[in-house]
């Protein structure tokens, strides 16, 4: 009986191994979102800048946009922000922000320090829209076409290379179709 107890670590290790093995295939930076090809889920959330003003999925209508999920608490978002500024200012890309599981004052501090590349920011303190979108963690960036359909999901930091090689082709395709 005591000897059997000594097998316990082995069993535990094998169990952990299953999860690790399962993790290999799903590269989290290329997570397929169940949402790709479907419209943005319905939501009704406050605007970050105008408390009280409610935003819904119609903000995505009419023009191809990037939906960037961020939060002041997320270190990688600080890194990424320079590129978002560059995309918004130099490339004229329309970026909608999703301020995810954050507090207003922190978000303002972040924007005050790094600049605001967003056309509109959806304030999602409890992560409800994030949950519906299947957000893994910040930062994530979705390409959404003019009909409000999710075209692509990028997990991780957006930089020049990601933009040129991954996002821009999807954006161009989305623009072409509409």
């Amino acid at each position: 009986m005591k000897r059997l107890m000594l097998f316990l670590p082995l069993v535990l290790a094998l169990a952990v191994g299953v999860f690790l093995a399962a993790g290999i295939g799903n590269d989290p930076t290329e997570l397929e979102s169940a949402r790709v090809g479907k419209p943005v889920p319905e939501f009704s959330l406050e605007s970050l800048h105008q408390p009280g003003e409610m935003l819904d999925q119609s903000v995505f209508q009419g023009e191809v946009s990037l939906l960037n999920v961020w939060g002041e608490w997320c270190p990688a978002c600080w890194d990424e922000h320079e590129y978002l500024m560059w995309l918004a200012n130099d490339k004229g890309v329309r970026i909608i922000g999703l301020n995810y599981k954050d507090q207003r004052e922190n978000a303002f501090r972040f924007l005050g320090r790094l600049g605001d590349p967003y056309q509109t920011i959806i304030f999602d303190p409890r992560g409800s829209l994030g949950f519906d979108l299947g957000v893994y963690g910040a930062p994530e960036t979705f390409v959404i076409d003019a009909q409000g359909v999710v075209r692509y999901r990028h997990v991780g930091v957006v930089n020049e290379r990601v933009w040129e090689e991954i996002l821009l082709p999807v954006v161009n395709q989305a623009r072409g179709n509409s």
Partner: protein
Amino acid sequence: MYPELGQLALIIGLLLAVLLATVPLAGAMTGRDSLQAFARPLSAGMFVFTGLSFAVLTHAFMVDDFSVAYVANNSNSMLPWYYKFSAVWGGHEGSLLLWILMLAGWTLAVAIFSRKLPSVMVSQVLSVMGMICVGFFLFIIITSNPFERILPNIPADGRDLNPLLQDIGLILHPPMLYMGYVGFSVAFAFAIAALINGKLDAAWARWSRPWTTVAWSFLTLGIALGSWWAYYELGWGGWWFWDPVENASLLPWLSGTALMHSLAVTEKRGVFKSWTVLLAIVTFSLSLLGAFLVRSGVLTSVHSFANDPERGTFLLALLGITVVCSLTLYAFRAPVVHVRSRYGTLSRETFLLLNNVLLVAATLLVALGTLYPLVLDYLNMGMLSIGEPFYNATFSPLAVAAGLLLGAGIFSRWKKTDGGWMGRKLLWPLAVSILVTAAVMLNYGGFAPWAFAGVFAAAWVTLATVWDLWDKSASRKGRWHGLKRQSRSYYGMVLGHLGMAMVMAGATVVSNYGIARDVRMVPGGSADVGDYTVVFNYIGERQGPNFTAQYGEFDVFLDGRQVASLHPEKRNYPVGMSVMTEADIDAGFFRDVFVAIGERISDEAWAIRLQYKPLVRWLWLGSLIMAIGGFLAIADKRYRIRVKAKAAASSGENAQPVGAKPSEAGT
């Protein structure tokens, strides 16, 4: 031409590793000394060829050989030479080569410093090291060849090293960390050899201890360097982010700490044997898990290398084989101890057991937090990431509890401790700790429950440690004589515990009383942070070797007196199209003042981040002291008089160190 030689050297290294993994082991099994004698030369050969390969890669960086893909991806002709050197381990392939070099180095070190161990034991230990080397050689040769060429279209220039890595902290951080990770392989190899032999005795524990302690010291330094680097380089003044990869380094540190203490009990009292050997296996496995998490891309992190499923699969296989084989061996061979209490309820054994329980609980907790997203993903329960609140809420109580136990445990004795005596001993440290804590609270202005708990635990550990040293060093021939009489390993322990207390104090105070302000400033303006006033003098431009920078000047005043002039920068690296914030810090023993430049808000105004960080230096200073304690402990005399003890140990159970003079001892 050279790069091919480097690759050839790697392949020869692999062949030598295969021989090392098999020949001495066969010799040990069959008792043939002639085969066992191969262990040392093979270890040396393996190290030489790995070193050669590393030298070739370094050469390729130094001469800007961009025909080598790895060099082209991680270097640039404009890079200063020292960063070209550190760029050797700036990416996946090169850092893996560094890892292997260290593995071979540790193997060689075991070969050199174990001349007095029984030949069978040495052969087995070196063979196990050889097996680990085989795995990593195969990994680098099959999936991650650092010498791969880009032919025929050789790029004119390289892509540049990630600017985040162009820093002194990053030159040192990975080597230290790897020394720690890889160093635990020695304790692992000793554990496996002991399991094969079925000899888990005091001698085995004594041999494992110095290796474990050294590896632990390196890992401590590595983690501290990483944290220090993150603090000044990432630009927002945090020092620990509970990032998966940080956690990956913390996991073996926690279980390694448990292992060090458990080994002490096994050596001194011959108990906890199965537990100690399990910890040795777990600690090295966690080091491998760390490598897997960083290099497989299953979790996203700022540290991650390029993701590649092939590498992930290979590493997981390596991890799996190691863990399954060693734990199976463990399950069959570990001694089943009959419950026969050889120590009292109140004894040093009990305190160290509780210490182990807490450390293992902390390990499990961090492992849970790190792997939780993977598990949820697997179960299709959606994606969630666990943030700082989880760790703060769960890790802090464990740390405080460990501190309280540690302070009390210092006064405990082996086998049995008189409760009343111990209580009286603890009375004064308790009273003084409360006073000290109250004074600290008053000084920083404000009571907070966690600040109280953390500071109290730190004061408690410090006072108990010093009190004990004072007691022990009492001598009729005077205090100085008494102090000199204490062993180096005792001083190692004292430093280790004082360092821990410093880290706890620093972490608690900076988390509870630190101030961070993001302010809008124009040149000529000023802002306050804590008691300090920061004046923004001007901002200008400056040209670096491979970047341009916006360069500000800020004067820091305290009570109208200037204490520092700071020059933070915002650097723009054109090659990689990246911008880096270089904060400038007025560092002090009791506080840091930290200034970082943010975004330009308007023509005139800039967003500036100002921080007041009390006792933040204690985090790294404490870690340094802990590491020094570790190095001091292994310089103890008894490791140098192992010589004769060994002969006794191989013949009988209870080896007593015999009175060899240090001068007689060889290594």
